[in-house]
């Protein structure tokens, strides 16, 4: 196995861990351009990996990174990419956590955390909206072929009925019952096979 390629991969994912802010989607853009610049692959060669890595559970940035590492250098590549993502995360979290918990009960830190709470709610809501926009559920350029699509003026999907119903069902089951989340996800997969 080519050690130089592995080192380049490791370095690339260390950078992802330190410099990429935002969602896994942002991390993917970072990986995509970084891998091309380092000469690890040709431009656009990784798009299919991003398309299916959302199909793996867990951290999106991790699954895209491991997927890219595996594509470029096999199992050693996947392992090196995983380490590259893990190491900065662990170091940063420990530094931040020490600072956070040293200051936790000071009025200033409590005020910052209290102000950040509504901001975090806005990030949560945005995460839901972005998933809908990228999957053809709401205001999307993607069209689900077998869906109940309501189209807008410019050929975009305004919303897709089946997905909206499924989302509402999952929200109500989560908020009103004690059904386990694993069961809801499995139920979603089964429902997908039945209705799409």
């Amino acid at each position, binding site marked *: 196995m080519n050690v130089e390629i592995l080192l380049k991969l490791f370095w690339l994912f260390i950078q992802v861990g330190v410099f990429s802010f935002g969602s896994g989607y942002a991390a993917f853009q970072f990986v995509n351009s970084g891998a091309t610049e380092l000469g690890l692959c040709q431009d656009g060669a990784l798009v299919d990996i991003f398309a299916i890595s959302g199909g793996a559970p*867990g951290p999106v940035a991790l699954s895209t990174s491991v997927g890219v590492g*595996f594509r470029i250098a096999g199992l050693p590549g996947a392992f090196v990419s995983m380490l590259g993502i893990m190491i900065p995360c662990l170091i*940063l*979290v420990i530094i931040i956590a020490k600072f956070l918990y040293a200051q936790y*009960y000071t009025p200033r830190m409590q005020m910052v955390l209290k102000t950040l709470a509504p901001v975090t709610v*806005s990030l949560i809501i945005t995460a839901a909206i972005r998933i809908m926009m990228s999957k053809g559920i709401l205001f999307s350029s993607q069209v689900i072929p077998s869906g109940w699509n309501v189209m807008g003026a410019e050929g975009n999907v305004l919303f897709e009925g089946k*997905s909206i119903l499924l*989302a509402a069902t999952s929200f109500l089951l*989560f908020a009103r019952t004690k059904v386990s989340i694993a069961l809801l996800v499995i139920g979603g997969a089964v429902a997908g096979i039945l209705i799409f």
Partner: protein
Amino acid sequence: MSKEHKYWYLFKIFFKIGLFSFGGGFAMMTMIERSLVDEKNLLTHNRMMNIFSVCSAMPGSLALNVSTLTGFTLYGIRGAIVAMIGNLIPATVIVIGLVAFISAVENEPLFLAVMRGISPVVVGLIAGAAYRVSKRALKNIWCWGLMLTGVALLVFAPGVSTIYVVLGGIVLGLILAFIPLKELPKSTQEDLKTKERS
């Protein structure tokens, strides 16, 4: 719980979260809430929310940062490592499988149908997480205003990335911390009285 047991429990929790959390960091929130807050009382709601807030200001993967910081909050550095590894093992194994068989999987109607079914469920769960935390995080009209401003910026303003919105929140919090409003010290005092176990 003995030492081995608590690490093993943490590993199991985060392995399960890693296996069933599709759709990024905030999709984990409902699972963390159910297992660590509601069932085991290891974290308070407040503490969980703060972990998510702090992690959204950090670079790297939100989901991985949240797992690691939660592990650290509970059981220190060892906890951080255990939670992180538990969280990433399922993802790593599954993604290697998917990429290895990418040509078979990519346009397979069954895979697409499964993903189309899971995505809306994840949306519903994330909405559920927002609904649950909003009871505590959005206590007055100012909080609602701040939240709606954040959503408006993130969804409708192209080029405004998450980190600027979070940094804006931090700066605002620091400014507010220096303004001696009458009600602020009181609420801070309440927080200090109900000090959380760490």
